Structure formats: C-alpha cells, structure tokens
C-alpha cells in the first residue's frame, strides 16, 4: 500500500539490527551535511546509491518515485537563491553567486535525502518501533506509536476504497464535487477510526487486555563486526573528502 514500507519488508537488509543501518545511513547523513558540499555530497550520494542498488537491493523505480516529491521541494527552494531582491539592481535581480549557493544546497540536500531514503527502504517500522523504549521513550507513547502504525494501514485502506467508491459515482469530476467528496471522506474516516478503536478495545479485552499492549520483541543480535562495517564507509567518505580539501 505504501511503496517504501512494502519494500522495507522485502529488503535483504531487513534482518540487520536497526542500529547498524542507523550508523551507516546516519553516518553518511552527517557526511552529507557537515563536509564541504564538493566533493563530500557527491561522494556520499555515490556511496548511498551504490549501497542501495547493490547490497540493499532497493527497487530503483520505487526509489525514484519516493525521491520525486522532496526533490521537487529542494529544487523549488534552491531556485529562490538564484535571484536577490531589494538590491541596487532593482527589485528582483540575478544573483551572480546564486547558482553556486543553489548548486551547493541542492547537492547537500539531495545526498542527505538519499541517506534518509536508504534507511527507510531497508528498515521495516514494525522492527524499529518496539525498540524505541530502549532509547528512553515512555512505553505508553511507544505503544501508541505502534498502534498508530498498525491502524494507519487499516484506515488508509478504508480511505482508498471509499475514494474509489466516490470516483465511481463521479465524485471527482468537478472541483466542487471534489471538495464535497474529500469532506465526506474525512468525516467518514473520523467516525470509522473511533468505531475501529472501540471494536479493537472489545477484541483485545477478549485476549486479556487490561491497558498494556505488551508483546514479545524478537531480539536481533547487535554484532560488533557489523557495527564496524557500517561505520567504515562514512569514515572513509569523510577522510577522502577532507583529504581532497587539504590537497587542493
């Protein structure tokens, strides 16, 4: 239903401890943000893409589709850097240094985006969420987050089907109809969500629910070797980029 989520469960990296993927993607993310954009961002992007389409087995089409919206934001945002306003050259003028800044930001942000996407495409949330208590979040909050994750798909499915039903009855043929349809859809979803919560309450009570949603979390081993292997590429990228800077 959600392409990133579905791909994460099929990822060859699914069995890796989330911390390992966190170190790998997080380390590269730091590289993208902290190193000089050239060649730091370019190197980071290259490493991420190689990892994604190589060992992590990310489906390229889904990856590209997911990247589309945030890339659009990055490009739109960067465009504003090409001009300056209110200067001596008139209300709006080309900024001679603008393209450089824009390119730098585009590169940096795109590389960072790729790191985030790789993490999302290889880490199923079902395996990440129960571990959030380990980093000190209150267990009630973690249970709510996990519930939201589960109910999200039920609600999304409902929304999709109601939307299809509305479309079949010509509910999206004009703007007015569209607004009416989305409004009806939103209201129905709210009612359905509350009803769902009540029914789930009943259903879980039969299974002994008294307020705690404790479940068995399978422990994944965190191996030192994997941690080191995950930390190596970011360190390598950092030292290469910094070395490149020194040599220049």
């Amino acid at each position, binding site marked *: 239903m959600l392409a990133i989520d579905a791909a994460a469960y*099929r990822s060859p990296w699914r069995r890796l401890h989330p911390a390992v993927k966190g170190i790998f993607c997080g380390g590269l993310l730091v590289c993208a943000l902290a190193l000089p954009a050239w060649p730091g961002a370019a190197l980071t992007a290259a490493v991420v893409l190689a990892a994604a389409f190589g060992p992590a087995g990310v489906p390229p089409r889904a990856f590209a589709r997911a990247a589309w919206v945030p890339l659009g934001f990055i490009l739109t945002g960067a465009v504003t850097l090409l001009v300056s306003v209110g200067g001596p050259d008139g209300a709006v003028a080309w900024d001679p240094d603008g393209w450089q800044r824009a390119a730098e930001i585009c590169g940096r942000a795109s590389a960072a985006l790729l790191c985030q996407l790789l993490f999302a495409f290889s880490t199923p949330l079902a395996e990440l969420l129960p571990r959030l208590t380990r980093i000190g979040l209150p267990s009630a909050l973690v249970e709510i987050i996990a519930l939201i994750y589960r109910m999200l798909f039920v609600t999304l499915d409902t929304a999709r089907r109601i939307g299809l039903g509305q479309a079949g009855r010509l509910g999206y*043929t004009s703007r007015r109809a569209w607004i009416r349809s989305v409004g009806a859809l939103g209201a129905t979803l709210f009612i359905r969500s509350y009803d769902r919560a009540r029914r789930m309450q009943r259903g879980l009570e039969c299974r002994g629910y008294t307020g705690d949603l404790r479940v068995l979390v399978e422990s994944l081993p965190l191996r030192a070797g994997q941690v080191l292997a995950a930390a190596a590429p970011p360190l390598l990228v950092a030292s290469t980029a910094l070395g490149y800077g020194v040599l220049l």
Partner: protein
Amino acid sequence: MTPPDTTGNAPAVLSGSRLRFGYDAAEAGPVFDALDVEVRREEVLAVLGPNGGGKTTLLRLLSGSLAPQAGTVRLDGAEVRWNRRGLEELRRSVQLVFQDPDDQLFSASVTQDVSFGPLNQGLDTGAVRERVAWALEALGITALADQPTHLLSYGQRKRVVLAGAVAMRPSVLILDEPTAGLDPAGVESLLETLEGLRSAGTTLVVSTHDVDLAYRWADRALLLDRGLLGVGPVPEILGDPSLLAAARLRPAWGPAVGRALRKAALLPDGAPDPATPEEVAEITGE
C-alpha cells in the same frame, strides 16, 4: 483458454479484450494477462473463482475503477479512453457496487447518500429528488429515507449502496459479492430486487463464491483463477466438476443431485437440475 462463447446472440454491451493487470512488479506476475470477457445485454453474468483469483480486479477494470495495463475495454462497441472524459462516460453507464457497503456509504443520511451520484451527474435538484425516490422505491427502502446511515443494519446498508448506484440509472450494474454476509432470507429478497432491476433492462455482472447461487440465478458463468478457466452458459460451466475443481471451487449441488435423480428416474431426462433443496423436496413429492 476457452474461446469466447458464441452460442448466445445478444450483443455485447460491455467487453474487455486482451486485458492485462498486475498490482505491482514485486508480485508473482500479473493477476491476469490477455483476458477476454464479454457482458451481453440484459444477462446475468456470474464471475466465480477462489480468493485472490482476480474477481474484484476484473470487475474494477470493467467499471473504470482500474485502468488495464494492456488491452481495451469497450462500451457498446466503442473503446473506453482512460481519461477524465472517457471515464465519466463509462461511469454513467456502468456502476460498480463493492462488497463492503461501508466503502461506499459516506454521507450522514440515506437520502443524502443516494443523491451523491445523481448530483455529480449534473442533474438539477428536482430531477435528483425524483431519482432518489425512485431508487429507494426500487430497492424497497423508502421507509429508511431519513435514517442516518450509521444506524442501519448490514443488509440495509447493502441496499442503500445499491440504491446509490441504481439512482444513476446505469445500464450495467456490477456487484462484487452482493450476498456475502447476508442471511438466506436477505439473499432471497436481494435476488428478488435484482431480478426486478434486470427485468427493467439492467445488465448484471455478479462475483460470488457461492456456486449454488450462481447456478440457480445466472445466465452465464465465468471462472477465474488468475486467468480465464472457462466461460459459457451456467449448466455447461458449473455442471463440470473438473472445471470447478480447477477453479478451487466445490461442485454445485444442483447438477450432482440432478444426475442422481435422473438415474433414479425421479427426474425426466430433459428437465433442468433442481436449484434449491425445496425443489428437491418438490420433485420427490413432499
């Protein structure tokens, strides 16, 4: 693949040729490929198959709720274009009713919900009002007109959704498992209503798991299990246990009992198979 059946002579009102559809690349290939299907004017076509066989997918393709990845859908002989205009035209003639009524009920009251389609067709208030009254009448739920939808029983909700589709006066009504979740009395009264629509000229396409129901009600049957297994007149298709087994369906009672009764000379050779247990009782004279 069985070639399209050509014994009947009613023209095809809706047809698909060489349809292909798959949900995503990761799945084991498309749900079906190069599927030919024909819906004839004023017939009842039953679509049968196991869970995941592709019934819902086919119905959605025929009603414009999914675009085929290859192949064409034709309405009255004209190819359907998958753009806004084309879809709008298709949806004026072909209405799909989902299995779960809650997927299509989204207004606060029955009248409001039934008026949704006609309003979107651009009718004026008077005409909409008429359509709504007529559709509620046709489904026998005029008494529910002012009820809030969330207080209705399952069977009542199914009827309201049907009224919402019928109010758009489609020439083809496609129903995804219309009898699922209804008790036998509910099934009977729904069938009666649908018979009424059909005799008023509506063509019906119905998906179901219930072989016995299809056997007694449909004109033609189409067996689907990720690909066409067979299509033709009901006695031919649903009387064939090996075909049904291939579609992972259990055989129908009617033909089995019919054979037994004929063997026992309780049923003359040319007579049709009994369609219900009541008919068996009648035949044996109780």
